């Protein structure tokens, strides 16, 4: 618990309290909007009961965005096509719909990929669309979709083609799954479709779930080639700015066999073989925990939560993997790699921490980044005073132990929940037993405590923050840095506060692993100490 000296405060002069800021944020809303926002704008009161068990307030999350509120959120199509399937280089992803959706998701998410040679497929630089016209809306678009798949096949001969539905597709009733099945039969390559219309769910999060389901149904389990003894999948790492490259390097140097990454720098074949890995390591809990759960049920593969954002978190995650395999050789490898990497991290911290220490950060982004990046700010001695997710659920805030209590509303009920049974032949009891044994030694499986537990008592936690609220927060509190996305960036900077994009990394990075942490220290030092922020007031105006 906080003591007098490190009491939480939003501003250095303690001019405003979290409670008063919350009141200010809420008071302007029309009644109905206010009732909704009250549940999503919280003061992180950590209350300990008599036994010292800390309870957190309940957050309203994964609920509808209020119309007219200028939200950060995108849509289900964006979550499915853009986030989850976007980074896989050798699938031809055809957007079925009018041209816009395919155009806007063309190369804009910065998931890097590295095909070994020119002979290897890489379709990420291409946008494929059926460019639906009014006659397709009136008479149906199935015929055009069929022809588009044929043309894509004729031109590119890919090993797989995926079809992504945009809003009108669901309304006019095109059966994209039937068309995909027909064309799969005809062409003899894997073809599957996603009903990821933009209006489904309440945010891009629904698109993640839909993507997970189809990849699980149509790709995972297609290739039973056996893997090394220390084989893992990395889940929920999208290789923004090359993050996955750094993690791949660390794992390789430890001797860990990375079967598949979902989905940074990934290929179709990696997904197809991913059920053969011994362990799943979940990075972004929000976007990918569905696949981890389904693989566990069907194939017996346990999953652990990892985080490669932050040097300390990276070391901890590598050790966690080693703990699971419980093999001296691997443990030694991991310790060797950590000791190879850490001197440079300490050097960088020595240089940058004094220039950043005590500064205050706000993070409003994503479904895990608003949590993970607090690690990096902490390593710089900076405080996260307010944070929240754009599209996460209650478990990402409060921890997975609230999952049984989460009310499934109409919007979530519309997203298919796959019923999965253990595979009669391929369920690996050995893995399951290994997990049980390791659990009894204290290894935590399927565990995620969420963002709020790691945030200071009385910090602000705001779900699905909107422009009105972030504008007021910055005016009242003037943080030293604000982290969000492209739509917010220039608004924040107009106010004289640097804004770090944590979706695109402002075209910088990588920030994962040890070297990534060093990059981030340098970047934040640059941003919070840039001379430009001191030049905002012209000399002819009184300070």
């Amino acid at each position, binding site marked *: 618990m906080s003591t007098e000296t490190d009491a939480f405060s939003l501003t250095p002069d303690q001019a405003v309290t979290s409670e008063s800021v919350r009141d200010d944020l809420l008071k302007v809303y029309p009644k109905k909007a206010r009732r909704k926002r009250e549940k999503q704008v919280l003061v992180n009161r950590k209350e300990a009961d008599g036994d010292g068990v800390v309870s957190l307030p309940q957050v309203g999350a994964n609920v509808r965005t209020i119309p007219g509120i200028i939200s950060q*959120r995108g849509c289900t199509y964006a979550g499915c096509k853009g986030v989850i399937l976007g980074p896989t280089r050798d699938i031809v992803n055809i957007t079925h719909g009018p041209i816009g959706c395919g155009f806007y998701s063309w190369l804009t998410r910065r998931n890097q990929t590295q095909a070994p040679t020119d002979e290897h497929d890489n379709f990420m630089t291409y946008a494929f669309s059926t460019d639906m016209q009014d006659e397709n809306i009136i008479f149906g678009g199935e015929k055009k979709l069929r022809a588009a798949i044929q043309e894509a096949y004729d031109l590119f001969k890919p090993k797989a083609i995926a079809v992504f539905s945009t809003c009108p597709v669901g309304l006019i009733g095109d059966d994209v799954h039937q068309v995909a099945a027909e064309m799969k039969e005809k062409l003899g390559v894997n073809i599957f479709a996603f009903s990821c219309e933009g209006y489904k769910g309440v945010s891009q999060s629904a698109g993640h779930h839909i993507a997970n389901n189809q990849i699980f149904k149509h790709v995972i389990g297609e290739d039973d080639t056996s893997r090394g003894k220390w084989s893992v999948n990395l889940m929920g790492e999208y290789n923004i700015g090359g993050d996955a490259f750094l993690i791949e390097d660390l794992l390789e140097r430890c001797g860990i066999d990375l079967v598949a990454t979902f989905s940074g720098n990934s290929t179709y074949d990696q997904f197809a073989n991913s059920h053969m890995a011994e362990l799943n390591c979940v990075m972004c809990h929000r976007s990918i925990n569905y696949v981890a759960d389904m693989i566990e049920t069907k194939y017996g593969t346990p999953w652990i939560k990892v985080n490669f954002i932050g040097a300390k978190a990276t070391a901890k995650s590598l050790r966690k993997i080693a703990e699971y395999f419980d093999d001296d050789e691997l443990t030694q490898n991991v310790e060797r790699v950590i000791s190879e990497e850490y001197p440079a991290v300490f050097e960088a911290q020595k240089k940058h921490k004094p220039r950043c220490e005590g500064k205050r950060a706000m993070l409003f982004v994503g479904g895990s980044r608003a949590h993970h990046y607090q690690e990096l700010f902490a390593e710089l001695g900076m405080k996260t005073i307010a944070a929240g997710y754009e599209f996460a659920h209650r478990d990402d805030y409060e921890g997975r132990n609230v999952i049984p209590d989460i009310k499934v509303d109409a919007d979530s009920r519309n997203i298919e929940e796959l019923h999965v049974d253990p595979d009669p032949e391929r369920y690996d009891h050995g893995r399951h037993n290994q997990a049980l044994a390791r659990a009894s030694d204290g290894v935590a499986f399927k565990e995620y405590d969420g963002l709020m537990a790691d945030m200071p008592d009385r910090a602000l936690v705001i779900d699905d923050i909107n422009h009105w609220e972030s504008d007021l927060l910055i005016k009242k509190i003037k943080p030293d840095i604000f982290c969000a996305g492209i739509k917010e960036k220039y608004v924040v900077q107009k106010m004289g506060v640097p804004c770090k994009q944590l979706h695109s990394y402002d075209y910088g990075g990588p920030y994962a692993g040890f070297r990534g942490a060093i990059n981030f220290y340098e970047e934040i030092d640059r941003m919070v100490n840039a001379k430009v922020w001191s030049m905002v007031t012209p000399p002819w105006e009184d300070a």
Partner: protein
Amino acid sequence: MTLLRHTPAEETARREALTVNPAKTCQPIGAMYAALGIHRCLPHSHGSQGCCAYHRSTLSRHYKEPAMAGTSSFTEGSSVFGGQSNLLAAIENIFTLYDPDVIAVHTTCLSETIGDDIPQIAEAAADKGLIPEGKRVIHCNTPSYVGAHTTGFSNMTKAMVDYFAEAKADEKAAGRVNLIPGWVEPADIAELKRLVALMGLDCITFPDTSGVLDAPLTGAHEMYPGGGTTVDELTAAGDSAHTIALGPICSGAAAKALQAKCNVPQTTLPLPIGLHATDRFVMKLREFNGGHVPAEIAAERGRLLDLITDMHQYFYGKTAALWGDPDQLVSLSELLMSVDMLPKYVVTGTPGKKFIKRMGEVLGDRAHDCRVEQGSCADMFMMHQWIKADPAKVDLLIGNTYGKYIARDEDIPFVRHGFPILDRIGHQHMPTVGYRGAIRLLEQILNAFLDRQDRDAPEASFELTM
């Protein structure tokens, strides 16, 4: 390693269903951009929130500026029952929180497929008292499955006439013209306004994104920066002596609507990119100021000519491939022809009847040396195939940022022009219209050629002076 490694040199069969690397995007983003050119206006996207997020992101990446807009945030329920309750809630929330003078609603493929009737919903909002005194809700229909982003821009520009323009006075205001600048950059609009002012004319310019999407950093975020056409100006446009619409695709419809509604005569001209198109613009303005052209404008024209003669050897005979919007492509092609270059390959995904004819006029007796494609499946993939199949390739690429992948693979100099430009700045600050704009464009083209020559020159012929 190549970036577009799957693009074959030969077109085996003409695609009819699959668009690859489009040379257009969808209507709503054009409507959003146009609406940002109304003073104190919040554009509103009536559809799923992803549309709004995508449009705002693209505009922000292009301008490095806030692009503020609301969304009706449709859910599955709204898709079944219609978006009325979402739009009503949005109108109430927007006026309460963001206090614009105007909400400019555009539709999306979703709300169009459902068939939401926006004027009826706006009327319901007024009946419920959700629209404060003196505030307005306007709309245009922008089904994404018709036309292209330019169509949406045109539709929202026309909506400004439909909703606001009024013929109030007995006589039209002599010496005042309406200027509909089309889809150009804020800096272009500022430049056009400067030229009209130099010609001694009053001008109502709409939409006007100058002073909106080039806002200064002051330490405060202005939700509604100083720029944009005011509602009063839009109303008064009905009393101007004449309307000059630049670019038939983006501006023609609004000019015609204004003529029909308020009897303001109109002239639709090509975008004044390049010497000839700017000449035509100035000659048209001259009809309303007594025939006078100030020395300053004459000097600007002369400087442009000077540059062309000084550096003509570097332009002469060079070929280019262009992609983008028809209004831009026609004028850019004319500019290239005027310095004895040749547009060799031109594609646009934007449909529109007169484009091929207009290109023919600009190309004149070189028309047979230029391949032009338009509409469905006329995309950057196709253009790239042509370039790959051509042993001489082209000397220059002109188009939006997506051209950088072709530029690198084929090692061709590249000048960014059009929308979106995601990886360079300058386009929002430096005009390419008018004589001064042509100087900037030619400078960019020259730099691309000369940098290339410097890069590739053998030691013996590496030139100091060029």
